[in-house]
């Protein structure tokens, strides 16, 4: 067996792959947070709970309606996005005139409610989600086996992230969005319905979380607590990347996933904390974040 730096290549590439997968989820979730933050100035604490709801939605569809993975990939984001629209219209919209921290507190409370209700009905042990038939098996890359589903997660999340980037940075709709981020009142004066744009943006960001949840369902167990710990790591990712740039969130998400994976190989004791340590270092060197602008 070949070795690199005294570590078997098999283990190294295995952890690299896990790192890339985790990175894909960090990227999708931090992207949603960044899009929401850009327009609403709210850090969406409910993001983790909605990611979990996405996974549960897929599980419900399969368990009770026999609706498979592909449809879930479409239905779950729409359903959770609709819930997000309701949350924004009925609750968040009342807070825009207040200090932004109230939005954080409200979404934290909502996250507790959602997680509590799901834990009540489903316990805290995970529910298995059957891997779709077409993804069983693996590609033999010569130096390692790459399970088909894991390859799909990386490719699909890259496609989602890059198309989000394209829509926001390269289309007319995206230009409205960016303009409203800079100066909402002025954009409204030009006759664009900013409140509706805010609602749809929140719905979209949340749908992104649900999409990530469906993708996560076959890999991790479907579990009411799956979003809670993840969201804290994603917050650290957001602080490291800075919320100024879409591409920045994507790169930071994948990058940190890989770094975390490598830490598991070389110094497993620190694998839980490495992202937080990087956050501390970035704060010392570049407080606005790697891709951020000082606000």
């Amino acid at each position, binding site marked *: 067996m070949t070795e690199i730096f005294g570590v078997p290549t098999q283990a190294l590439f295995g952890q690299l792959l896990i790192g890339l997968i985790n990175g894909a989820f960090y990227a999708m979730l931090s992207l949603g947070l960044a899009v929401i*933050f850009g327009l609403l*100035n*709210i*850090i969406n604490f409910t993001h983790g709970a909605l990611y979990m709801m996405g996974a549960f939605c897929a599980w419900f569809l399969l368990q009770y309606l026999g609706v498979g993975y592909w449809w879930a990939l479409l239905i779950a984001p729409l359903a959770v996005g609709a819930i997000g629209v309701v949350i924004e219209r009925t*609750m968040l919209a*009342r*807070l825009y005139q*207040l*200090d*932004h*921290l*109230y939005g*954080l*507190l*409200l979404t*934290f*409370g*909502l*996250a*507790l*409610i*959602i*997680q*509590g*209700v799901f*834990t*009540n009905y489903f316990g805290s042990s995970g529910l298995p989600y059957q891997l779709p038939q077409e993804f069983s098996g693996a590609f033999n890359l010569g130096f390692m086996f790459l399970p088909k589903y894991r390859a799909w997660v990386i490719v699909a999340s890259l496609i989602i992230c890059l198309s989000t980037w394209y829509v926001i940075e390269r289309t007319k709709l995206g230009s409205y969005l960016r303009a409203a981020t800079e100066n909402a009142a002025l954009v409204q004066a030009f006759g664009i319905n900013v409140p509706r744009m805010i609602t749809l943006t929140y719905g979209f960001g949340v749908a992104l979380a649900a999409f990530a949840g469906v993708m996560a369902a076959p890999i991790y167990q479907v579990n009411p607590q799956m979003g809670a*710990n993840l969201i*804290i*790591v994603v*917050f*650290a990712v*957001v*602080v490291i990347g800075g919320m100024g740039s879409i591409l920045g969130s994507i790169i930071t998400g994948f990058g940190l996933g890989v770094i975390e994976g490598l830490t598991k190989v070389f110094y497993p*004791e620190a694998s*839980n*904390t490495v992202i*937080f*340590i990087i*956050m*501390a270092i970035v*704060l*010392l060197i570049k*407080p606005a974040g790697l891709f951020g602008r000082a606000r």
Partner: protein
Amino acid sequence: MADPTSPAVRAPFGETERTTAIAFAVMLVLFVVAPVVVYPVFLMNVLCMALFACAFNLLIGFGGLLSFGHAMFLGMGGFVSAHAARIWGMPPEAAIALGTAASAVLGLFTGLLAIRRQGIYFAMITLALAQMVYFFCLQAPFTHGEDGIQSVPRGKLFAVLDLNNIWVLYYVVLAIFLGAFLLIYRTVHSPFGQVLKAIRENEPRAISLGYDADRYKLLAFVLSAALSGLAGATKAIVFQLASLTDVHWTMSGEVVLMTLLGGMGTIFGPVVGALVIVGLQNYLAAFGQWVTVITGVIFVVCVLAFRRGIVGELAAWWAKRRA
């Protein structure tokens, strides 16, 4: 953070110094008499959490800094004092002092990082740093991970007062709470507290007047961390246990909730909030996860309809009645 137009913020201690003195006297009498009717261990839990919430309120209510990671100070204070009392055989006063000092040092380092950003970022950074401390406590050998430090000896305070007597213990905890409470009151009313409020209202302006905003914020952060550590250290001695629950992010959320419910920026609010929440957890313990749901509902209701909290609303109602 707190709505600056609310009377609770303009006169954070109710209407006048006199009202404050009366309220303080009422609180004092209630806490002195309470153990006759209420289970003392429950009351000591309330006192520890009230101290924790008051320390947290110093930061959010008067400094405008929302820390979402205050559990790290509570938990670290608890672990260090439990370790000092159990393994090093220190007397309780030394163990508590050491726990407090450990949290102050932790507060200095995390504060130096966190005050580099403001508002929402400050909240996220403190949350992330607290999660790092949580993983540290999970893995470090001295905390015994999931088991926590159990059967911590209570010992004799100053080699005289036997803390194994529940009554002695109760009044010692009450004395610690009152001491810290008065210290916070004094801090808020000192020139330091005034500058802190000025920074909260308008930081660039405070800086333009020559105040080094970062140093004031850091000092407030360290003070708040130390007092949270004091609460945790006392709690560890009272319950003879230091566990991971006190470092977990749910605890950070709980202290935010107590302060929000009682009234941010009011001096008695956190005490009322702590009483309500600890009471709620005590009586609803049988309902398991529904406690989490109820906690969440209280959060949502407070933010949407009840931003001044119990004490803030009372003060507003009182002011309106007198006007």
